[in-house]
């Protein structure tokens, strides 16, 4: 055992006892879970319903659109990964093309692609599509890491444009229009619906939250009080209440066509809900930027919007980033409440599957799968945020 590890785990006799007890407990629970998963659990419920869990009742003959979207997503993810890695600041020379952590992540992805589709009992055609997506992601990651730094400082600016654009393309691919057959929102389900709802709310609540935070600190009383009332009202009500309320009143509140059905009403409620919490995260970021920053910017002649956009917000948003991503992670998990208003999101699909007499008593398998899926999505968000955070910190003397 390395000396550092011994010092951390067995520094005092009490530490040693705690360490031994914890390790024993974890090992016992872990081995039982593993034993259950490998010998007793019946994973047929997942294999038989994998398509349902993934996309709900999305028409089979239109599913190629989702594969195309998957390919675009893989490319965008690879691009972001590569560009962020290549983002070197003056005191941080560009590191290796595949640093240790990246090699580890890439190996995990390859293992996952090799194992998961096979374990789900997918046909060889579909298995090979998953291999293709993984390969594409890693290829773009390699290209962006290799050549992205040639774009210099503009490279990271590509990302905030790529993702919203991809979102629009994705919505057309999923929902139809522009010559594609329309697939109504009530035919989306499973992970697809969960991700559509979460990404819609994330993308729209981010700007809304920033505006609310600025409004709350504005010197215009109407704007300030309006923001305060909105934020405190939303934060004072449970999300599930708002979701039910929204189903009933959003039809009158929003202009016609913006919330045509239950699914879009729920998406708007998630957005409004998340914006109030984001506003508080951004507000704490704004409060952490010294007053002298705004004064210096204004004394140089910058207008208030210029000073906010170029000096105050870049610093405030960097400070607020961890809290913001934390909010996005809760938002992703909050989408499970949609099952309570009768939507077939990931949890709603799971409940309908478990209600099927064929799969009675298979709740443990289903819930474990759900937990792992959600954990993967949240871990990806968290990892991305930490990578971004490290690279946005300006270098200072102390480092």
């Amino acid at each position, binding site marked *: 055992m390395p000396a550092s590890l011994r010092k951390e785990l067995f520094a005092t006799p009490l530490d040693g006892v705690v360490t031994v007890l914890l390790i024993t407990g974890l090992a016992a629970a872990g081995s039982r879970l593993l034993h259950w998963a490998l010998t007793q659990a019946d994973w047929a419920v997942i294999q038989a319903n994998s398509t349902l869990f993934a996309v709900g009742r999305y028409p089979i003959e239109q599913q190629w659109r989702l594969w195309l979207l998957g390919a675009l997503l893989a490319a965008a993810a690879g691009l972001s990964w590569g560009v962020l890695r290549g983002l070197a*600041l*003056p*005191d941080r020379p560009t590191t290796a093309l595949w640093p240790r952590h990246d090699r580890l992540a890439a190996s995990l992805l390859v293992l996952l692609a090799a194992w998961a589709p096979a374990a789900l009992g997918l046909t060889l055609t579909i298995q090979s599509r998953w291999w293709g997506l993984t390969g594409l992601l890693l290829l773009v990651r390699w290209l962006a890491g290799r050549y992205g730094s040639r774009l210099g400082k503009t490279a990271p600016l590509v990302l905030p444009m790529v993702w919203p654009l991809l979102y629009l393309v994705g919505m057309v691919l999923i929902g139809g229009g522009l010559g594609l057959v329309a697939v109504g929102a009530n035919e989306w389900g499973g992970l697809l619906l969960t991700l559509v709802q979460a990404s819609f709310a994330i993308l729209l609540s981010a700007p809304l939250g920033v505006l609310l935070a600025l409004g709350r600190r504005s010197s215009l009383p109407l704007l300030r009080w309006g923001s305060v009332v909105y934020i405190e009202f939303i934060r004072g009500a449970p999300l599930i209440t708002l979701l039910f309320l929204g189903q009933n009143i959003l039809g009158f509140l929003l202009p016609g066509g913006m919330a045509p059905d239950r699914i879009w009403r729920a998406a708007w409620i998630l957005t409004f809900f998340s914006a109030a919490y984001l506003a508080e995260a951004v507000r704490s970021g704004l409060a952490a930027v*010294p007053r*002298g*920053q705004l*004064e*210096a*910017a*204004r*004394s*140089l*002649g*910058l*207008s208030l919007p*210029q000073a906010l956009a*170029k*000096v105050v917000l*870049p*610093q405030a948003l*960097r400070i607020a980033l961890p809290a913001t991503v934390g909010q996005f992670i809760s938002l992703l998990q909050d989408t499970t409440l949609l099952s309570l208003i009768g939507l077939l999101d990931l949890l709603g699909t799971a409940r309908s599957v478990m209600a099927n007499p064929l799969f009675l008593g298979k709740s443990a398998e289903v819930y474990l799968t759900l937990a792992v899926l959600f954990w993967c999505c949240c871990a990806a968000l968290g990892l991305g945020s930490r990578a971004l955070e490290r690279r*946005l910190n*300006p*270098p*200072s*003397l*102390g480092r």
Partner: protein
Amino acid sequence: MTAEPKVAKSPAMIEARGVEKWYPNGFHALRGVDLTVQRGEVVVIMGPSGSGKSTFIRTFNALEEFQKGSITVDGIALNDDLRKIDAIRREVGMVFQQFNLFPHLSVLDNLTLAPVLVRKRSKGEVLNQAMALLERVGIAEQAHKFPGQLSGGQQQRVAIARSLCMEPRILLFDEPTSSLDPEMVREVLEVMQGLAADGMTMVVVTHEVGFARQVADRVVLMADGQVVEEATPERFFDHPQHERSRQFLSQIL
């Protein structure tokens, strides 16, 4: 004939008359302050803490509001008109006690941000000027570093260069050396001395007696929101006229 004052004909750069300010809590910070600063003049404002000297110079570029009196900067009367405030801020540079460099931007970007955004000048042209200014304040080799990587003295010199990059007609210094380690004070004062020698109009709030003696055309002593004494450095330091001045000088000398 006595020699003509160097700027007798042109109107004053800063003309403050009877400026009064109350803070929202009712504190009467400025009680009718008058000050005239001529073109090319260096005026040092001294005084005990809480005397209102920082508040006073911060009214010149509208970082602080005032309730009574009038201030005219380079011929523009300061009032609630936002366009006039913006026009004045373009002409008035300010150097702060805490430097207030933008930590998320490189040194060079700190300098070029305002000229590009506010004066709409081309980035390339501003870059050349910025490099020349960094050369002048002696830190051209740090151009691509970030503020957090510089010492306090270096940061304050960058802050001065940042103000100069807007080509202001007046520079205000709000205790520019007060938060510096003693060994870094001199490098900043030398830069300021160079500016004064080049004819820059400067209003400096400072406790640096040596600087005031060597560089100032006039020294103003403020106490309790009022101007107590206004004199040449020689007269002020060697023959102060007022009891309050003598008391202040006995504390800092």
